[in-house]
């Protein structure tokens, strides 16, 4: 009797989650599998590595460029987020902290495409940044140069993603026991030592999660490289769009998607390894 009861409960449970599972399977897993399959299917329907070879041949540089840009941006995000979050939680005057707390979130509410557009006018040769630098006498007009290349992409991605990581990190830092910080100060640690020795090790997990999620997000951004630097070398999202829009070449696009997916999987692996490492001592 009891066994029947348990089976019935299991069935009810399964029935309850099946619509959600169905949606996930139909709209997420299936298209992804299709993309993988189509990346290896030849014109006659057989298995081929032709598309993958072509993708690697044509876009090898862009792949490396993508890895370099996203890794560089991730590092930039980490540095900025740590600086802002630690300033928010550890020090500075109350007034500047309030101002910073209010300011730093804005990019969260600005879409990537708008970010790209804003950066275009800001970083161009005759853009606002150079005007300010020339006006301030920091550079002479002759040496003003456009930053609308790889540097522009990095600046735009960092600008857009820093608030997200800062938001997570500042929350985690605020929850570090203030006596932990005082104990270190009391034993002779300066502010930056408190940050490096006491606070960061305790929020490492949160920082890593924020960075991995940003890394994956940045891999999928199309609008920013489109707006700032669509010419090679550029991010592979631009190449994927180009293969499809200009050539109708879904096969190579799928191969590029798969490569992009592998990069993201690298990030996910890092994320999972941390999550597992964290779960083991608790168990």
């Amino acid at each position, binding site marked *: 009797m009891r066994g029947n009861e348990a089976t019935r409960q299991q069935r009810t449970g399964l029935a309850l989650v099946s619509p959600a599972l169905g949606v996930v399977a139909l709209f997420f897993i299936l298209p992804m599998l299709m993309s993988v399959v189509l990346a290896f299917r030849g014109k006659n329907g057989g298995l081929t590595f032709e598309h993958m070879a072509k993708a690697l041949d044509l876009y090898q540089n862009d792949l490396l460029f993508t890895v370099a840009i996203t890794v560089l941006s991730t590092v930039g995000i980490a540095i900025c987020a740590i600086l802002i979050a630690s300033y928010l939680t550890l020090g500075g005057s109350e007034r500047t902290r309030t101002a910073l707390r209010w300011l730093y979130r804005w990019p969260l509410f600005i879409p990537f495409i708008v970010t790209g557009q804003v950066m275009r006018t800001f970083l161009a040769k005759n853009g606002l940044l150079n005007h300010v630098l020339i006006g301030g006498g920091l550079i002479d007009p002759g040496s003003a140069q456009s930053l609308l290349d790889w540097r522009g992409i990095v600046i735009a991605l960092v600008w857009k993603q820093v608030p997200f990581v800062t938001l997570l990190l500042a929350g985690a830092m605020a929850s570090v026991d203030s*006596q932990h910080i*005082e104990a*270190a*100060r*009391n034993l*002779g640690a300066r502010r930056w030592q408190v940050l490096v*020795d006491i606070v960061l090790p305790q929020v490492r997990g949160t920082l890593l999660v924020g960075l991995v999620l940003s890394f994956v997000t940045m891999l999928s951004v199309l609008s920013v490289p489109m707006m700032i630097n669509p010419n090679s070398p550029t991010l592979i999202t631009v190449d994927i769009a180009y293969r499809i829009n200009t050539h109708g070449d879904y096969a190579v696009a799928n191969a590029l998607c798969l490569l992009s997916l592998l990069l993201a999987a690298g990030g996910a692996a890092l994320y999972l390894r941390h999550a597992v490492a964290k779960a083991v001592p608790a168990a």
Partner: protein
Amino acid sequence: MQTSPFLRIESLTAAYGATRVLDRVDLDVRRGELVALLGSSGCGKTTLLRSIAGFVTPESGRIHIGERDITALAPEHRGTAMMFQSYALWPHMSVAQNIGYGLRMRGWKKEAIAGRVGEMLTLLQLEGYGPRPVTQLSGGQRQRVALGRALAVSPEVLLLDEPMSNLDYKVRVELRHELRALQQRIGITAVYVTHDREEALALADRIAVLNAGRVEQYGTPEELFHQPASAFVAGFMGADNAIDVVPAANGGWQAANGASGGGSMRAYFRSEAAQLLGQSPAGPGALVLSGTVAQMLYVGHGYRYRIRLPASEVWVHAPERIDQGTPASVAVPQEALLLFPLHEQRAA
């Protein structure tokens, strides 16, 4: 022990926003002395300790250690080490890393740090615990590690913020003796914040009782216990009975019973100091109160009785059992009475 003050606090005033927490506090601590700051929560004792450590910026007043004025110094330059109520051990570090952190900050070499950490582990009977994560320690062990971390840097003044409050009673009493023995052995100057009278009496060379941001009385445990300077201190030191009295014809005192007049005072006494009168007569000059037993509590080493008097009630300790409702007379020897003027408010 030197007689000249080592840690000197002069007219220290501190506030959180509009709330004044410390009001012109003066305190002298001699070298090698353990001074307890005793008071109920919100009296300012922790703020005073944190001012010495440098975590609270006072509005006015000075703090000196030896010849140095440390009032405006950053916490790391004061030569004080604090032990926190929550211990504040860093969970991502081992026992040895926790204890050695202050030395690392002072630029010690690795071998020197390891040597000093070893000394600390021996001193605190934690040999072999060095590589363990602090998260695997018991409450008592954590407390020792926190103490070791503070002592490792050889501070001039050790500051302890209710270090026993998170421990079981039994562990607390044990560690109390250990802490006192250790403090005397290494001869360190220490300031110890507590709200536990028993702990302060057992540990301290001198006790400062704080009330509403002021030092109500500062003296040896015996002085505070037997000669409280105010009704507040008397109450805090366990004289929990208060009764209004007027001078009696025999030169002693008698209950005022609502009457007020010239010479009336408020008398405080401990329930252990009073006697329940059976056959034996009261001593000469004793305050005698008559009433009935209103409540009886067994407390292990005898009974505690609430005696209802015409105008008030008192608590009395007695070894024998007496039923509720029995008429009873209470005698308090004259020397056990702590007398204060009526207008003084008792708050404990």
